[in-house]
């Protein structure tokens, strides 16, 4: 049954691939959307079935076919659905469906064959992503992993006649490939270490090992896997492809580079939570890189002028936060943020798409302004998304981001927490810079908006939403702009609702919720069959006298002692192993959490306020500061010159070696030379041997005779 989930989009891909040219746009789009919707229904049904099961043993397996059987190596093509997979699969199919719907309107101006090609790629991507998420072992996941990389290349370079687009596609694929190499090596090491590549089997075995104190094989293997994750999820040092990937159509950016593909790295770590949590060195690296990326991306996003680039760097930054969560052991929190982020990031991208669509291709925010009057649906949904990402309380982003920050702080990773807080401040600031510059104020070119004041107010703009009519009347000076057509508007509105409501499955205990998502996901992060072995850090220390050197996936220390542990898993909220601790300690923790929550809310509002000051009211101050810090501005604008560095250090040398060394010397010289020599030598020899043919009968007779004499002589001799 599970196989239907990736199969339906794959069928959609096949249909659009083969028949697309002859189908009308409506049919092609419908095929794709129906495939996705079908996958969503099957996923929902499967998750429903899953939820009916007992919490300890939630798993649906579908062994599709034996795949690789070679001696000791047995890798069947198996799909498995567990709580973690359930979250991912719903995100991919649900948000994927909305984006397909949105695309039917956004890509409407393309020719029918291009339209079908687009949807075939989109469906193929969804299919691969679902294989990635549902895979039960490393190789199957890798199939999906590579597949989404391929589709990313195809979709980024969709308008391949534009050189920047095809270059961006190549860059994405190549950088991804570097990461994939690390992933492969990590996978090999896992195989060597554990003799199996099945996730559950690996987790089971890893769960029985003690956590590594030094930099051992587990650390190296997980580090290599993490390299793969940095490639796929655009973290330092392999983040360089994501901003360039904005060359692709905006729905592609929304789907692939916000909601799904880039989260594959985070998912992979979550999937191998047990493995990673036994390699504390790697976890430290993950958290460190995550937070550094978050900060770096935040600073760059602050000065970008392309609406999609700002969002791209915002994605990189938020991914960094997710990795922070994974790195401190808060796997559920990381996945939770992945889930909420999918909603509001997709929303933001689709909203930017609506803006670009309305402005007939303009993407520079310096040329925008005052759009909230003319594009109300777009404006309001975009605003909601921005509030969510900034972490304003009561929206989804608040719950997930706050969870991460809390886990970082309470886990003792104070430096990480500080940097993460700074990154969050930056997030709020640059997001609202984007909002204010795009939707508020006066239009930089001739516009009809008036100067607005304040950030939140009721707008009495007339509704300009119209159907998707011919777009040749577009143009900044052509009068009324039209807001998102129905297909796009529906997607925006649904995602906006999600951005608000999605967070309520993870309301922390301290403010009255039960943090359901954490409990739901917990079994996925434990070694199979080891539920009930959670003890608090203090108890562990008391028992064994050794300090706890690793944190189990759900925050408690896994006791290697035999027998069942002292306390069964409780349902009491924040998983900080409060099973044994005293009520006073619990209250103290709750107080800290509340304080932190208030603090991060304050950060969010502070960020909004900063943006309001610098980009709404007193833009002159901003300009003056920019002029004064021109050098810094240039560095940030040029993304810290990392691309240039890579180009000089890696790309150019490779070009030169290839061109002068491999091409000229090896290929033209050696190989061609060898082939040519073979040919010429034949000619040479034949020129020599030709002389035997003298045309004289007697010479021929003589040669026969000589032969006879020789042969006879040989036999006589013997």
């Amino acid at each position, binding site marked *: 049954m599970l196989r239907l989930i990736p199969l339906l989009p794959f069928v959609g891909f096949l249909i659009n691939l083969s028949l697309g040219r002859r189908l009308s746009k409506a049919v092609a789009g419908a095929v794709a959307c129906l495939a996705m919707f079908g996958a969503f229904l099957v996923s929902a049904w499967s998750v429903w079935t899953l939820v009916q099961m007992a919490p300890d043993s939630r798993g649906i397996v579908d062994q599709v076919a034996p795949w690789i059987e070679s001696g000791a190596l047995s890798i069947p093509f198996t799909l498995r659905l567990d709580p973690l997979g359930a979250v991912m699969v719903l995100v991919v199919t649900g948000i994927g469906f909305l984006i397909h719907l949105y695309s039917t309107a956004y890509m409407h101006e393309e020719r029918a064959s291009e339209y079908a090609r687009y949807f075939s790629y989109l469906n193929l991507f969804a299919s691969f992503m679902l294989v990635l998420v549902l895979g039960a072992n490393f190789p199957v996941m890798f199939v999906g992993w590579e597949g989404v990389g391929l589709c990313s290349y195809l979709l980024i370079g969709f308008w391949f006649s534009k050189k920047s687009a095809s270059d961006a596609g190549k860059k994405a694929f190549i950088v991804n490939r570097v990461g994939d190499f690390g992933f492969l090596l990590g996978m090999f090491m896992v195989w060597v270490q554990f003799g199996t590549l099945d996730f559950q089997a690996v987790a089971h075995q890893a769960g029985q090992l003690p956590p590594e104190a030094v930099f051992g094989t587990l650390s190296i293997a997980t580090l290599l896997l993490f390299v793969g994750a940095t490639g796929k999820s655009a973290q330092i040092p392999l983040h360089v492809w994501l901003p360039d990937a904005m060359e692709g159509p905006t729905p592609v950016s929304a789907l692939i580079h916000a909601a799904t593909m880039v989260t594959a790295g985070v998912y992979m770590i979550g999937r191998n939570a047990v493995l990673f949590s036994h390699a504390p060195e790697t976890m430290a690296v993950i958290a460190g890189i995550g937070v550094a990326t978050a900060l770096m991306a935040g600073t760059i996003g602050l000065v970008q002028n392309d609406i999609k680039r700002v969002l791209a760097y915002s994605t990189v930054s938020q991914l960094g936060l997710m990795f922070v969560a994974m790195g401190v052991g808060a796997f559920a929190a990381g996945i939770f943020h992945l889930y909420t982020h999918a909603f509001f990031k997709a929303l933001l991208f689709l909203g930017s798409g609506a803006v670009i669509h309305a402005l007939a291709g303009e993407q520079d925010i310096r040329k925008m302004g005052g759009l909230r009057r003319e594009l109300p649906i777009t404006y309001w949904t975009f605003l909601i998304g921005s509030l969510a990402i900034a972490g304003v309380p009561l929206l989804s982003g608040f719950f997930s981001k706050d969870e991460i920050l809390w886990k970082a702080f309470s886990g003792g990773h104070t430096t990480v927490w500080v940097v993460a807080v700074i990154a969050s401040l930056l997030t709020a600031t640059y997001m609202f810079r984007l909002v204010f510059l795009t939707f508020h104020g006066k239009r930089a070119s001739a516009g009809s908006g008036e100067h607005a004041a304040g950030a939140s107010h009721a707008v009495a703009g007339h509704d300009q939403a119209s159907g998707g009519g011919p777009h040749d009347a577009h143009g900044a000076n052509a009068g009324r702009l039209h807001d998102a057509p129905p297909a796009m508007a529906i997607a925006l509105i649904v995602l906006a609702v999600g951005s608000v409501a999605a967070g309520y499955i993870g309301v922390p205990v301290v403010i009255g919720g039960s943090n359901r998502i954490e409990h739901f996901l917990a079994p996925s992060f434990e070694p199979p069959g080891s539920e009930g072995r959670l003890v608090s850090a203090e108890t562990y220390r008391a028992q064994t006298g050794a300090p706890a050197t690793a944190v189990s996936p759900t925050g408690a220390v896994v006791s290697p002692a035999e027998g069942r542990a002292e306390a069964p898993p409780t349902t009491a909220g924040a998983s900080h192993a409060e099973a044994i601790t005293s009520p006073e300690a619990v209250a103290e923790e709750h107080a800290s959490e509340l304080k932190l929550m208030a603090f991060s809310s304050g950060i969010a509002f502070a960020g909004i306020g900063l943006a309001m000051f610098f980009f709404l009211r007193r833009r002159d101050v901003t300009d003056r500061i920019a002029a004064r810090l021109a050098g810094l501005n240039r560095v940030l604008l040029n993304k810290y010159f990392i691309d240039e560095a890579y180009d000089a250090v890696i790309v150019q040398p490779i070009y030169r070696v290839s061109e002068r060394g491999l091409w000229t010397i090896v290929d033209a010289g050696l190989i061609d030379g060898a082939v040519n020599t073979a040919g010429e030598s034949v000619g040479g020899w034949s020129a020599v041997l030709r002389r035997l043919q003298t045309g004289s009968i007697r010479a021929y007779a*003589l040669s026969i*005779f000589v032969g*006879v004499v020789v042969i*006879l002589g040989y036999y*006589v001799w013997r």
Partner: protein
Amino acid sequence: MGTDLLLFSLFGGVAVAASLLVVLGRNPMHSVLLLIVSFAALAALYITLDSPFAAVIQIIIYAGAIMVLFLFVVMLLNAHKEDEDVPAGAPTMKKPLYMGAVLAVVLAAELVWALSVAGNEPDGMLTRGASPDSAALGSVRGLGQLLFTDYAFAFEVTSILIIVAMVGAVVLAKREL
């Protein structure tokens, strides 16, 4: 015994001498005629080997038909004149000449050596009078039997060969097909 040896030496010597003259003679006509002499000597040798049928065949076919054909051609082409005047422009190949001569001597030596070894039979005597089935040996009946049973296939193939040769000769010698 003595007569055998005598006969052998006589006819053998004639054969060798005639053959040498065939090869060395200047006039092709002479060569042809001398070859006929050589054939006759060989036929006599066959008779001493208790193979009368072979001898007769030799005379009838070889000397009678083939040599006559040669004679016809020689006379047709007026080749009985001196043939050693080299037409202008033809290369005189001295080297193959001498090499050929040397090699021929070598060949002779080899053959002699090889064949003499082969003849080391306990009873290497050949002409010792009547052999047990010397009559059967030379009889036409016996020959016919062999021909049409053991060598039947070769017989048939040979007939095809003859036809092909006939057709080929006609085609080749025709004037302007």
